[in-house]
């Protein structure tokens, strides 16, 4: 009779103790069980900020005055009729703010989405297929990565805006969004490539291939769904990058001067010497909204990051545990002193 004692498990490859394997397993199932981040304070704050601003950008434009109606008195401070006052040209600041928020969100979403698509195209394909395709795509990604972002955007934006025959498109927010999208994907591509490369080695990907799945289907149906938190983080990062980038470009006068965004508002305020004439109501609201939007999106991003990267999630918990332990220790010693 054959006599194999040790069951197959303990003889596993290498020195990895089974307890670590078990821990990894638990972490894995834990993650699959909770595809969405647990609602933490951070996440909740972020979501509330972003939702409120988005609703404002989507709905408010329907209820405000025409943002380019210049029949109002110029530079009115906040007050009756104009909650946020008026600009030098007599535009209602609140109306401008509503439309500007919508414009900025539009730029952010379009540019962020475009950047994500490009990042998937370059990163996931390179990581999954490897070989020559990987080398070529990674080379392009690295070139995009080392060219400094804002100067590149400025050059492209300045160039396309002076191209003949583009008409109104040359000064539209769509064009700016496209420029920002095309220049903003490389960082995400690097992250996605690394992840795709490691997922490719997963057994369930191999099993899908053995089952007969075609490569593109493996990527889009087997791999990408498991990357949703990571993709969401990259998308949000792209949106932040685009909104801030648009504001920067506009401030420099390279923005979508044909549309209204938070950035063009700041630019108008700057060229109209709002600071000099102490018209704070003209530049503080758009500046504050950009900062808030950036904060809200970043908070959501941090929360997602904690899901993607369990180490981060455990960090605050470890700190808490430590604090608890310290407090417990102190109370023990206090009790000791009393006794």
């Amino acid at each position, binding site marked *: *009779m*054959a*006599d*194999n*004692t*040790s*069951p*197959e*498990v303990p*003889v*596993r*490859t290498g020195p990895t103790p089974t307890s670590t394997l078990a821990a990894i*397993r638990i972490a*894995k*199932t834990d993650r*699959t*069980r909770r595809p969405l981040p647990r609602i933490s304070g951070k996440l909740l704050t972020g979501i509330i900020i972003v939702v409120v601003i988005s609703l404002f950008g989507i709905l408010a434009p329907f209820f405000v005055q025409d943002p380019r109606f210049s029949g109002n008195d110029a530079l009115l401070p906040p007050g009756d009729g104009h909650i946020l006052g008026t600009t030098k040209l007599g535009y209602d600041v609140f109306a401008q703010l509503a439309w500007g928020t919508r414009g900025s969100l539009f730029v952010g979403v379009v540019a962020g989405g475009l950047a994500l698509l490009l990042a998937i195209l370059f990163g996931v394909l390179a990581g999954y297929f490897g070989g020559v395709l990987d080398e070529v795509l990674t080379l392009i990604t690295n070139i995009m990565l080392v060219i400094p972002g804002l100067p590149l955007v400025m050059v492209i934006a300045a160039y396309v805006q002076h191209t003949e025959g583009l008409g109104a498109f040359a000064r539209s927010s769509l064009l700016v969004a496209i420029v920002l999208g095309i220049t903003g994907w490389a960082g995400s591509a690097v992250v996605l490539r690394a992840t795709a490369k490691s997922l490719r080695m*997963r*057994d*369930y990907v*191999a*099993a*899908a*291939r*053995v*089952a*007969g*799945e075609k490569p593109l289907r493996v990527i889009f149906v*087997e791999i990408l*769904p*498991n990357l949703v938190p990571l993709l969401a983080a990259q998308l949000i990062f792209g949106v932040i990058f685009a909104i801030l980038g648009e504001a920067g470009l506009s401030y420099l006068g390279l923005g979508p001067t044909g549309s209204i965004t938070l950035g063009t508002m700041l630019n108008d305020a700057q060229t109209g010497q709002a600071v000099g004439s102490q018209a704070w109501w003209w530049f503080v609201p758009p500046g504050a909204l950009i900062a808030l939007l950036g904060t809200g999106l970043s908070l959501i991003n941090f929360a997602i990051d904690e899901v993607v990267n369990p180490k981060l999630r455990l960090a605050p918990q470890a700190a808490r545990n430590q604090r608890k332990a310290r407090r417990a220790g102190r109370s023990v010693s206090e009790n000791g002193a009393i006794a």
Partner: protein
Amino acid sequence: MSHAKQGRPEAPSTLEIRNLKRDYTLRSGFARTTLHAVSDVSFTLEPGRTVALVGESGSGKSTVARIISRLENATGGQVLLDGVQAPNRGRALERYRSKVQMVFQDPFASLNPFHTILHHVERPLKIHNPHLSKKEITARAHELLERVQLTPSSRYADRRPHELSGGQRQRVAIARALAPGATYIVADEPVSMLDVSIRLGVLNLLADLQRSEGLGVLYITHDLATARHFSDEIMVMYRGAIVERGEPDSVILNPQHEYTRTLLDAAADPDRLGQLKAEVRAEGSFR
């Protein structure tokens, strides 16, 4: 098709592995070394037979399995299905996969956490039977789940892998491997990640299916005891080569190669042997 008895082709089918070789180039800095994971492996699988491939960790068993299931290319040698070289791409590969399937070692890793159990079984059915309607595919998927003793299938179909136990997951993996109507199954340590108490159940299921479907099974394992019980031939692999092969009883009772003796010695433990025998008796006779 797996669910119905099907006439085997007139000429006896074979899956022949001839002088298989696989080198890995390891790079550390500028230094390069070559690792001979598999140096010379030949054997033949036939429908209705189970061949066990036994060897210690790192001896190259999984590499052989991955080459047979076309997840990796060999450095040398051939994989011949019915005398024809196993293809690498395209329709030919699809046809090959409808005949040769694999069950992976770790059922916790081999099912996609994102997809339902039904999806895992339906996909290969759909890929290899493109003419079937969605309804028929679903019906067959349920049949397959019942065949691997996930009954009633409706209780499992819409769950996701993490809601199942290891043994149940491995049954899903087996159903998935049967779905294309495969003749050959490569089972790479199919129970090593499972709890000892449920291993025999899964192995018995594999043995049952092997007999009723007339499958040719390559059973890769560390465990000489189950290799002896479940196979018609044992091959002992050591450092990338097969060092001993033969009838299970003769290999185990009368090992010729030094390495086989070492394996047997390492495994010798009367307590566990008794326990296994009892388990086998409890499960009923299986061979």
